[in-house]
Structures are given as structure tokens and as C-alpha cells.
């Protein structure tokens, strides 16, 4: 197990593995999104209260899940980098932050567009779910700004990992905000107590899109980490040999 773990963490091994794995995430991911989006938009019945407006759920919920998953990955990778000083884990944390920021922005934007016809407002400053999700976006932006402001990569890795770990508290607030406080945002739907509070015809396309988005996200992340590894290892012998080799792997 540890041998496998150490081999995976080796930059040249990961560089090759990520290239091979990326299409295995991307192709099924896009197929699932195609199924989930088509079924969600055209086959699933309209909601009895929200009509067709609820169909925004098929992009809003997956992006919201991914915004939180990306932060979890960033904090765990940062923690591993701090404790075990694995070079690859800092590369993962650095690569996942911009993706997390984009998906957080997407969840906020689609939520706001959904809120206009349903709640009569684009934004509610007093809403705990919206505000904690906005803080999540600021955490990502702060994390990236902190990294960019420190020239020494090792110091930037450590400082940003501490920030990522401190920010985990906000993830808990995002998750439970709709239960702890009164909120315009609806409560848990898929993970509701007693099973999903949504009809199967609406649920299956949503699950397909959640899994599809996660796979596409995985493919993007693998490729971003690969680039980050290449940049960090640009002065090493294996990169030199790879570039000068007749096959010239990109």
C-alpha cells in the first residue's frame, strides 16, 4: 500500500499516469452529462410548485457539490503536504483552487438566476447559505492571491496550506447553514433524512449530472495537476530527458 502510494506521488510517474487516466474520466463524464441534461430538460416532469424553473437544479446542484468537494481536496492535499511534505500534494492543492473558484462562481450565478423567478430577488445579503458560499469564493480567491504573492514555492505551499485548513470551518457552515438558521434556500433534498425528497424521474438525471460533472472535474484536475508538476519539475533530469526523447511525450 505504502509502496503504491509513494510510487503514485513520484512526479514522473504521476505525469504519465495522469495523461493516461484523463480520457477515462472525460468521456464517461461527458456521456453522463449528455444523458442527465437531455433527460432533465426534456423528459423529467415539471415541478408542481416551481414549474420548469426547477430544471436549473441540473447544473446548480452539481456545481455547488463540486465547489465544496474541490475545497475538501485542496484542504486535504494542503494538510498532507504540510505533514508528510509530499511535493505532489501541494501541486494538487495549487491546481484545484482555480477550478474550485470557477465552480463556486457557477453555483452562485445559477443560484442567483434561479432565485429571481422563485424568490423575487437575485441576491439576499442576510441568507446564510448564499453568504457562506460567497465566503467560499473569497477563500478560493484569497488562497490564489496568497500563492501568487509569494515567490518562494515552498513558502507559498506552506502558507496557502494553512489558509486552506483554516477555511475548512466555512465548509461546515455551508453544509449546515440551511439547518442552523432560517434561510430562503431550501433544505437538503438528496441527502434528506428518510431518503431523497425528490421524485425518481427527477432524481436520476440529477445523479447522472452530479457524477458526470465530478468525472469531468476529475479530468480537468488531472490535467491541471500534470501541468503544475511539469512547471515545478522544469529543472529536473526526468523533464529534460522526456523533452529530448525521440517520442517527445507532451
Amino acid at each position, binding site marked *: 500500500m505504502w509502496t503504491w502510494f509513494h510510487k503514485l506521488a513520484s512526479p514522473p510517474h504521476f505525469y504519465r499516469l495522469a495523461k493516461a487516466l484523463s480520457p477515462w474520466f472525460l468521456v464517461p463524464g461527458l456521456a453522463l452529462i449528455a444523458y442527465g*441534461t437531455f433527460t432533465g*430538460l*426534456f423528459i423529467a416532469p*415539471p415541478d408542481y410548485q416551481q*414549474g*420548469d*424553473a426547477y*430544471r*436549473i437544479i441540473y*447544473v*446548480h446542484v452539481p*456545481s455547488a457539490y463540486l465547489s465544496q468537494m474541490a475545497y475538501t481536496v485542496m484542504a486535504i492535499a494542503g494538510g498532507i503536504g504540510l505533514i508528510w511534505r509530499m511535493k505532489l500534494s501541494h501541486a494538487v492543492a495549487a491546481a484545484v483552487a*482555480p*477550478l474550485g473558484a*470557477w*465552480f463556486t*462562481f*457557477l453555483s452562485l*450565478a*445559477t443560484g442567483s*438566476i*434561479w432565485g*429571481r*423567478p422563485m424568490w423575487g430577488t437575485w441576491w439576499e445579503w442576510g441568507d446564510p447559505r448564499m453568504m457562506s458560499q460567497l465566503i467560499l469564493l473569497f477563500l478560493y480567491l484569497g488562497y490564489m492571491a496568497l500563492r501568487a504573492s509569494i515567490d518562494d514555492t515552498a513558502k507559498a505551499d506552506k502558507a496557502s496550506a494553512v489558509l486552506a485548513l483554516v477555511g475548512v470551518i466555512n465548509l461546515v457552515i455551508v453544509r449546515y447553514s440551511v439547518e442552523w438558521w432560517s434561510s430562503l434556500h431550501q433544505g437538503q433534498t438528496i441527502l434528506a433524512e428518510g431518503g431523497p425528497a425528490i421524485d425518481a424521474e427527477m432524481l436520476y438525471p440529477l445523479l447522472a449530472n452530479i457524477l458526470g460533472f465530478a468525472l*469531468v472535474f476529475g479530468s*480537468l484536475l488531472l*490535467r*491541471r495537476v*500534470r*501541468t503544475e508538476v*511539469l*512547471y515545478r519539475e*522544469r529543472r529536473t533530469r526526468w*523533464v*529534460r530527458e522526456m*523533452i*529530448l526523447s525521440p517520442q517527445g511525450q*507532451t
Partner: protein
Amino acid sequence: MEAIAMDKYGAYVWSCFALTFVVYAINEWRARARHRRIYRDIEVRVKALETRP
């Protein structure tokens, strides 16, 4: 046409799906472009070092 109109919510629903597509396209393009740029920079440097007398 009814499917496109989405009752009266077409503008809201379609703009969300369009925005999602745009965000994905930007990320896909950025991932490819950054890799290409970094790879080329390293390639130029490595080959310059190799040809140096």
C-alpha cells in the same frame, strides 16, 4: 417550441445551462493553453542548453 420556452422560465433555465457550458469551455481551454505554454518554454530552454557549445 414549448420545450424551449420552458413555460415562462426559458430565459432563466437556458442562461444557466449556457453559463455552465461557457465555464467548462474556459476551463478546458485554459488547461490546454497553460500546459502547451509551459511545455514550450521548457522545450526551448532545454534545447538551447543542448545546442550550447
